């Protein structure tokens, strides 16, 4: 039963996304415009700057696309969900939904970066994998923060305020990991850094699942 509710919750969110195409295309436009502005300002930068710009773009795309996961719901509707599902199921569904959304957006922005800002990538496969892991990490953190922001009077600005310091280390780890895919420099400790990132992701999910029920109660 819980998996059924989980699937139907995710399906509901994705369906809403598909039917209200204006929000989906709004985010897509946001991604396109951001990459274009970056391109207009920097042209085709060297590899290290490319990497930094890419992850910065990811951060802003994450804030804007994941913010919708909780903030797009009307506050009163939470009470309705409250009667239907367990809070952990609800949070998991939101995490899956925002991860899917951000994965798509990240891949689009990676494509745009390659087209506009040039292609410094030595190992494209590895970079795509790191992008995927990165968007999972960012969306997990921001989904939970969006839940906090939704409870705090639907204040979207709060999400950025709370989120930026929290995800800075995640972004630092990600851009260091990604350097391996860009330049063939030998990086000692790459695997332990990757392990730290994965542990951090697991920790965020576990913490979210523990804490969300408290947030959920009125």
């Amino acid at each position, binding site marked *: 039963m819980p998996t059924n509710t989980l699937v139907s919750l995710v399906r509901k969110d994705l369906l809403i996304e598909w039917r209200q195409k204006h929000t989906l295309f709004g985010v897509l436009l946001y991604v396109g415009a951001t990459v274009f502005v970056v391109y207009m300002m920097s042209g085709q930068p060297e590899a290290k700057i490319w990497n930094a710009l890419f992850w910065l773009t990811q951060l802003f795309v994450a804030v804007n696309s994941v913010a919708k996961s909780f903030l797009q719901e009307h506050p009163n509707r939470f009470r309705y969900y409250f009667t239907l599902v367990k809070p952990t199921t609800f949070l998991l569904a939101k995490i899956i939904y925002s991860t899917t959304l951000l994965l798509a957006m990240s891949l689009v922005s990676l494509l745009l970066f390659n087209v506009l800002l040039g292609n410094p990538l030595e190992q494209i496969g590895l970079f795509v994998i790191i992008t995927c892991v990165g968007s999972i990490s960012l969306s997990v953190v921001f989904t939970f923060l969006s839940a906090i922001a939704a409870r*705090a009077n639907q204040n979207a600005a709060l999400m950025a305020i709370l989120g930026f310091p929290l995800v800075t280390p995640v972004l630092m780890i990600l851009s260091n990991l990604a350097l391996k895919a860009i330049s063939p420099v030998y990086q000692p400790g790459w695997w332990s850094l990757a392990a730290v990132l994965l542990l951090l992701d697991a920790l965020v999910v576990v913490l979210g699942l523990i*804490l969300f029920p408290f947030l959920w109660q009125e």
Partner: protein
Amino acid sequence: MRQMWWKVLCVLMLAYTVVGGFLMPVPRLNIVNETIRNLYFHVPMWFAMILLFTGSFIYSIKYLHSGDLVHDIYSAEFTKTGILFSLLGMITGMEWAKFTWGEFWSNDPKQLGTAMSMLIYFAYLVLRNGLKDEEKRAKISAVYNIFAYALMIPLIWVLPRMVDSLHPGNGGNPGFNSYDLDSDMRKVFYPAVIGWFLLGLWMATLKIRVALLQHKDDNSFQFDTEKQ
């Protein structure tokens, strides 16, 4: 007055730290020279900060467990005192860095980690001030506090150890433990840690008492005439 003894201890320890810290012998080291005495002030600030944030973390868990607003007040005041100590630690650290590393800010991973944790706790204050409803504020800020602490503290401890740092004990620099922190320095350093931590605790308890009175005052349904 039953809780008087640790305040006396705190004053004694700190008096000893200041007097002993400036007068007792220290090892003569290149570059560091006499600034090594800052060890008695800079490092204990960080210990006190971590302990105060830990206290705040524990009271946040207690709040979620009990729903008692008193625990929320404890948690908030511990955080505020912790932020004060993080500022003091940052200032003493930057001053020390100017004399030994040459710059106030030299992109050291530990400095970065600390700057990040300060930003996180500033965000906590913003979050608290943004919410008017007491119950809601308590609940949301407790949730954020637990989330931030559990994510941040491992990062502060783990990440700087994985990259090179200018701090002693990292990236080939000798740690104070190996030979610098000799028995003379230990005699001042350990009391200093205890003294500064007790001072932080004392400040926090005073702030908590004021906040509790305020809380009581706000929540008692008396007319103004009755209060007097």
